[in-house]
């Protein structure tokens, strides 16, 4: 799950919760679903292979991306795919953040979510 200390509310979109490289790689994977690191690097061609590799390891470790080894006779490679859709990710992050807010502020959070919902509808 996204670490709370990594959340930066000042940033735009998913960059509030992920680094810009992580967002770019997640976007590519949401679009294509099953890719190798070389294909991901081709899509993000201004990122080096080492940078893509480090970011992919981090995304796998934090559970947003999964990989399986594709072993052929003459080659070995990872195939990456996202573990959830963009909407599911939104749900997971929201639940996590709301849980943390409720733990800290109790019922005040529930009423402010209700108010915010009222304003938007």
């Amino acid at each position, binding site marked *: 799950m996204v670490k709370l200390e990594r959340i930066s509310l000042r940033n735009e979109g998913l960059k509030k919760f992920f680094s810009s490289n992580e967002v770019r790689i997640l976007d590519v994977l949401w679009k294509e679903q099953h890719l190798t690191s070389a294909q991901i690097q081709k899509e993000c061609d201004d990122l080096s292979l080492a940078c893509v590799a480090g970011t992919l390891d981090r995304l796998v470790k934090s559970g947003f991306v999964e990989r399986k*080894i594709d072993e052929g006779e003459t080659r070995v*490679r990872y195939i990456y795919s996202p573990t959830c859709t963009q909407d599911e990710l939104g749900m997971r992050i929201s639940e996590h953040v709301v849980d943390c807010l409720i733990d800290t502020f109790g019922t005040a959070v529930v009423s402010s979510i209700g108010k915010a919902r009222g304003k938007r509808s």
Partner: protein
Amino acid sequence: MDCFLGCLTQVGVLLPFSIIIASSLSLFFLFFILRKYEFLLGGQIAVTASIVFGLLSMNCPMYQWIWIYSGSVSSGVLALMLVRYWVAREARKNTVSLSSYVSPLEKEFEIPVRVIDTQKMRAFVHGKAAYLSVGLLEHLNWDEVRAVVAHEVYHLKHSPDKLISSLLALSSLTFKPYNDEHLADKYAAKVAGEDNLVRALKKLETAGSIQRIRDVLRSS
């Protein structure tokens, strides 16, 4: 200094002490001339012996140096052992089974080859095995992988054990050189071909790889 020499002459250890110092200096000299690690390790053992010998022959307040020396050496040993344990644990925890892929390498080089579960391109030796990452196997072709394994095999068979050489460097208050990358590259170029090694080094982009490529090409 007078006190130090006085102690040494008083207890009659000046001659053996001088012999140990002279042999350590000769071994260091031989190391610098011949670049054989056995001489360096021998020199470090002799320096350690001379320090311990010198400290034990003290019969004045300098005795406290024994405690300072043994304290720093033992804490260094402990720190190194912990690092080694941690590296071994991490390496064991993160390996994946790709035995059919790496078994030809194991047969050719007669060492166990293990595969680490990471996209980063990594190759190193630990204990008696060579470790390669999935990322490395993915981006290097078979001949380039052979060049990398040959390089690691050289370290495994010819470079001194890192823990022992670190301990000796620490206890002899000297240095721990690891400038045998060039020799390992020369060996890898001979076994797997210079072109394959150069291509692997280019892909790996490790620190100093440009210099290493230049060295390989220069020595050919």
